[in-house]
């Protein structure tokens, strides 16, 4: 395997990590707000809070890691994407800032209020929508290069069916991933009313997820036929994704093995996300950035890989400790151990 592919695989793993844990976080915010509106907050909010409190900060890091790593491995991407994503990127940043800081203000500060819940719920939907434009732009057609200057065409982005189908997929996926995780978490906490409530959310968002993915495929076939044709070469990955989806749906429906069900959801998205990624190659941005040409100097590339491996030796034990103390600590999950 050559350096460019090692680099993009590492980065894609982090993007996938962000997809899962940020989805749980974003969806949780939406469900908190929704259950407050429907006066069911007493049922689910305790579960959501117990999970989110110790881990919220970690979520952002995955995103930054992906961005910094992407620029490190492929510096040319900074030039193209940096120019194109000024507006959507800035909007995502503003929303992330509001979300992160308000979460802390409410959680570590004194009290919660409705404005906070609203912001927390809504930003969770708008952030993925604006971040997903990065993926849309990568398909080409929204950036042109004229006389050495990169030009971004927002009108094309807003008028594109493909672009909206990606936004739709991003939002429903978040809600599905989040609901299936929280169902599992509630089950571990033996909080059965919450589990029932969250399970209905998971079931409700399952079908829209599949519908949205089909829509994205259809949109892609029209927007970027080259990529679509390459995706068909990896049809088995998308088929595996569908199988995992059906498996998880069955388990959640039958109310058993919620842990396995969530694992299947993770696999569902892993197959789809990596299938998308691998068929996207060799272009990082159609048709301007080819992975081979964009790769940084070899010495820097290997230095980054070395730093990454060294970093993993530090991070993996730390993450295991975090998970053992909070996520997989039955007593904490049930609310037996208080911190503050």
């Amino acid at each position, binding site marked *: 395997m050559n350096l460019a592919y090692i680099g993009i695989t590492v980065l894609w793993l982090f993007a996938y990590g962000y997809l899962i844990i940020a989805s749980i976080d974003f969806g949780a915010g939406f469900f908190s707000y929704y259950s407050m509106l429907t006066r069911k907050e007493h049922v689910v909010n305790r579960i959501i809070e117990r999970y989110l409190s110790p881990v919220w900060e970690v979520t952002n890091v995955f995103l930054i890691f992906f961005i910094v790593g992407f620029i490190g491995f492929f510096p040319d991407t900074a030039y193209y994407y940096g120019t194109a994503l000024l507006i959507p990127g800035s909007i995502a940043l503003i929303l992330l800032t509001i979300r992160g800081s308000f979460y802390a203000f409410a959680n570590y500060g004194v009290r919660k209020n409705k404005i906070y819940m609203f912001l927390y719920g809504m930003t969770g939907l708008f952030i993925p929508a604006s971040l997903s434009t990065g993926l849309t732009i990568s398909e080409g057609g929204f950036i042109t290069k004229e006389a050495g200057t990169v030009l971004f065409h927002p009108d094309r982005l807003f008028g594109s069916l493909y672009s909206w189908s990606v936004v739709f997929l991003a939002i429903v996926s978040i809600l599905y991933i989040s609901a299936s995780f929280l169902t599992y978490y509630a089950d571990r906490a033996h909080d059965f009313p919450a589990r029932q409530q969250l399970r209905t959310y998971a079931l409700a968002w399952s079908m829209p997820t599949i519908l949205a993915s089909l829509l994205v495929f259809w949109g892609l076939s029209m927007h970027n036929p080259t990529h679509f044709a390459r995706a068909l070469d990896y049809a088995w990955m998308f088929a595996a994704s569908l199988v995992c989806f059906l498996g998880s749906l069955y388990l959640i429906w039958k109310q058993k093995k919620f842990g396995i069900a969530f694992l299947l959801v993770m696999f569902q998205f892993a197959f789809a996300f990596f299938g998308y990624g691998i068929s996207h190659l060799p272009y990082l941005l159609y048709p301007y950035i080819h992975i081979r040409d964009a790769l940084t100097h070899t010495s820097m590339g290997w230095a980054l890989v070395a730093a990454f491996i060294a970093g993993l030796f530090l991070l993996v034990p730390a993450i295991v400790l975090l998970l053992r103390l909070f996520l997989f600590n039955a007593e904490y999950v049930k609310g037996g151990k208080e*911190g503050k």
Partner: protein
Amino acid sequence: MDSVIWSRLLTTETLAFHIIFATIGVGVPVFISIAEGLGLLKKDPHYLLMARRWTRGFVITVAVGVVTGTCIGVMLSLLWPQFMQLAGNVISLPLFMETFAFFFEAIFLGIYLYTWDRFKKPIYHWLTSIPIIIGSTFSAVFITMVNSFMNTPAGFTIDKPSGKFTSIDPIAAMFNPATPTKVAHVVSSAYLASGFLLASIAAYFILRGRNHEYFKKALKLTMIAGFALSLLTILAGDFSGKFLAKYQPAKLAAMEWHFETKKEAPLIVGGILDKDTHEVKYSFKIPYGLSILGLGSPEGKITGLQDIPKDQWPPLFIHYTFDMKVTIGFYLAAIATLFLLLWWWKRGNEWHPWLMRGILLAGPLSFVAIELGWITAEVGRQPWIIQGIMRVQHAATSSNQVGLIFVLFTILYCLLAVICTTVLYRLFKGKGPEKELIERKWESDVEVVNS
């Protein structure tokens, strides 16, 4: 206005806001850890409570630091795409490692916050503060390395016809000539400013007539640290002067309004500059000062601005920002020394209201100094974004919508500043440590009356 100006404004605004929280984020964990460690060592509930209360405030500021740090991290690519394209090739390693360091810190902060009473041996909880310090300090170290690279780029050669970087050496880029002095100065001043911030809070309550031992212990702890750190920071500043004389003479000369290359150069403090004749009026001159600062000897020959092409002169106002931050640095050292002397001298009253007012003032001043020092360092690098390689105006985005983004972020930062302050105020209002000690049954009412 063009996109270069707007991009500069937005970057300035974001960093000016971020570095306040970043400084707290780097420095305060050290004090939290010291307080908890002392509390466990001396079995003193006052220090244990100090660690808890500092943590409670800290976590609010850290959240703002995290989100604004995310902003500046992404903004570098959004506003300065050409810069990141070029710099990404050479200096992305420390940028990448900074993310790891922060990741590490974030994980342990999550653990630290929620495990106060969960371990059978309290020392385990204290141990989780160590990775927080390592993570936050190394974040500062790595990011300062990137900034150092902008001042003294190293670790590559430029291929003449194409202008591209070749033979990249990431390690040499990280450990460029500016790295040692910059890292030392940034880290020590972040610890210093955090110490004085905590000291000024304690001094405020003592001034208000709260005489509980808790406040006095907090002030003694932070003043001892503040004394040592202020000396370290001044020393690191002196090294920076020597570094500048050798590697960035234009910055040093602009900071000092030093026009003519000469030996036995005096240090000019304050004054007013005549822009045409380059004469300095009403200033205070320290004979041989600049030669000593720059080269460690009165005989040292310091390059003047006249030997530097005029289109490469940094703006000359940094003379004032430099003078002011140095003055504040010496003020901090002086007031900490005074406090320690009065404490040590049996007949002295280290709790004198005027001294308390001086310490109260020192907290905000230390943050003013952080801002001024940062302005001096960044403006002093102008017109370059990467010294000698790339000018600022060649690095900015070609988009013409930065003005709009600037307005949005300005509103955002104003909002954050107001809400953050309000939240912190409400968090501690009417919940003094005296009350909390009793609530936690760490101290009875009787003791409080006696003390």
